[in-house]
């Protein structure tokens, strides 16, 4: 540990000796270090946010990469971590909106309406609020749902049970489960603004 300190001390000294010419280099390296911290603080947030929009790992990874690459091209490391994070989430939102434009073939007008209604996350809110753990959002919605809806969604998603096992567990037919989960998700979507609004 003390050796490490020594090394750092020396490198600070060395930096100082390099004077103005060296300054930019140092700044640059610090930029890289700042970036590393920034990356580690935000990767999980962005990944979970994206995963909660696409529901599968492969696309979550692809989109997360795209978001960071786009963001870093326009990022201004001088502006401090908060504004960098804001920028990152802005990029994330537009990337998700683009994804939906491709895969959610709703009539264009209604999709734009949905997006305006904050489908990809409210535009005004702080990044931290948008990326609030999807798990937490799911829990809130679950608590607000009637019991039979809560049960079926818990089985299918939280416990990852097959339709067959879910039917067994809830003493329903598989056809019942299909109808029930459809309506449960529909109800969940209706409840979502209420549960998030209550924050």
């Amino acid at each position: 540990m003390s050796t490490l300190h020594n090394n750092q001390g020396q490198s600070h000294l060395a930096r100082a000796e390099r004077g103005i010419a060296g300054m930019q280099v140092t700044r640059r390296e610090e930029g890289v270090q700042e970036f590393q911290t920034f990356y580690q603080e935000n990767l999980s947030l962005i990944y979970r946010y994206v995963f909660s929009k696409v529901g599968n790992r492969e696309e979550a990874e692809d989109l997360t990469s795209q978001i960071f690459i786009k963001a870093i091209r326009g990022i201004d490391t001088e502006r401090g971590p908060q504004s960098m994070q804001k920028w990152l989430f802005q990029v994330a939102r537009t990337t998700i909106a683009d994804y939906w434009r491709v895969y959610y073939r709703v009539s264009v007008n209604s999709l734009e309406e949905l997006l305006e209604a904050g489908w990809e996350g409210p535009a005004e809110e702080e990044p931290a609020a948008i990326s609030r753990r999807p798990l937490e959002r799911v829990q809130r919605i679950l608590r607000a749902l009637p019991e039979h809806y809560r049960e079926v969604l818990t089985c299918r998603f939280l416990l990852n049970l097959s339709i067959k096992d879910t039917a067994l567990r809830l003493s329903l037919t598989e056809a019942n489960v299909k109808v029930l989960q459809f309506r449960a998700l529909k109800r969940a979507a209706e409840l979502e603004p209420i549960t998030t609004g209550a924050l």
Partner: protein
Amino acid sequence: MSGEDQERFEDYLELEQYIEQLQAGRVAHPPAELTPSQANIYRMAALFRSASPEASEPRPEFAADLQARLEQELQQRPRPASQPQSAQRKKEQKKLHYVSRRALLTGGAAVAASLVVGAGVGSAIEHVVEQPGAANTKDPWAGQLIAAGVPTTWHFVTTLSELGDSAVRFATDTVVGYVILNDGDENSKDKGKIIAISAACTHMGCIVQWQDSDRKYHCPCHGGLFSEYGNIDSRSPIPYIRPLPRFNTKVVDGKIYVEVPLKSAAPTTQDWK
């Protein structure tokens, strides 16, 4: 029930199919022509899926790959101000120091990055033009798939008897790739060789996907195409600069091994908290 949507039997089935795909960890998209209320149902399904035990955190190897890619991107960004001439030398020293430190920090991951970072190619060239004579005319990643001095290991992929005429995907903590048997249709002298390629697209580093139907690798990000041995396909919509890089392979007792960067040097999950 709201009057907006009449629920149809097919709606239940389509949703179930979508949920099953997600449960299987596959890419799934909602069916076409949704009403806004139906679209909301699928959006909820994706949200709920993210609460499943399988979802949670990004994989460490993904995190490491992306970080290295971004660092390279950051390094290649145009400078805000022009570099004073006298600083050039020191900068080079600094840069060398930096590279080795990074290699130390991220170990195999940095190497993986070199494969993954196709992005480097285009921008690296710009960078060199921008500063002729600088140390970076020799791109540390160019040519070599695995930089010298990086510990490697032989990763078992499959056996000769199991390897049919399709590409077999493999993934280690540091790289993703494919192994395929060369049947000599591109160049007969290579017939019978085992070829191992990196699956990281040389454009932006997305992981290319093998498709049996046309026997090509498809890049999910920009639709680019690579031939079965990783060469740039003439019909690729993206004019790639480099083919997919190759790994060394060996066959011992009918088992196919690929030389990959060692995983132990890669960051662990703890690093990403």
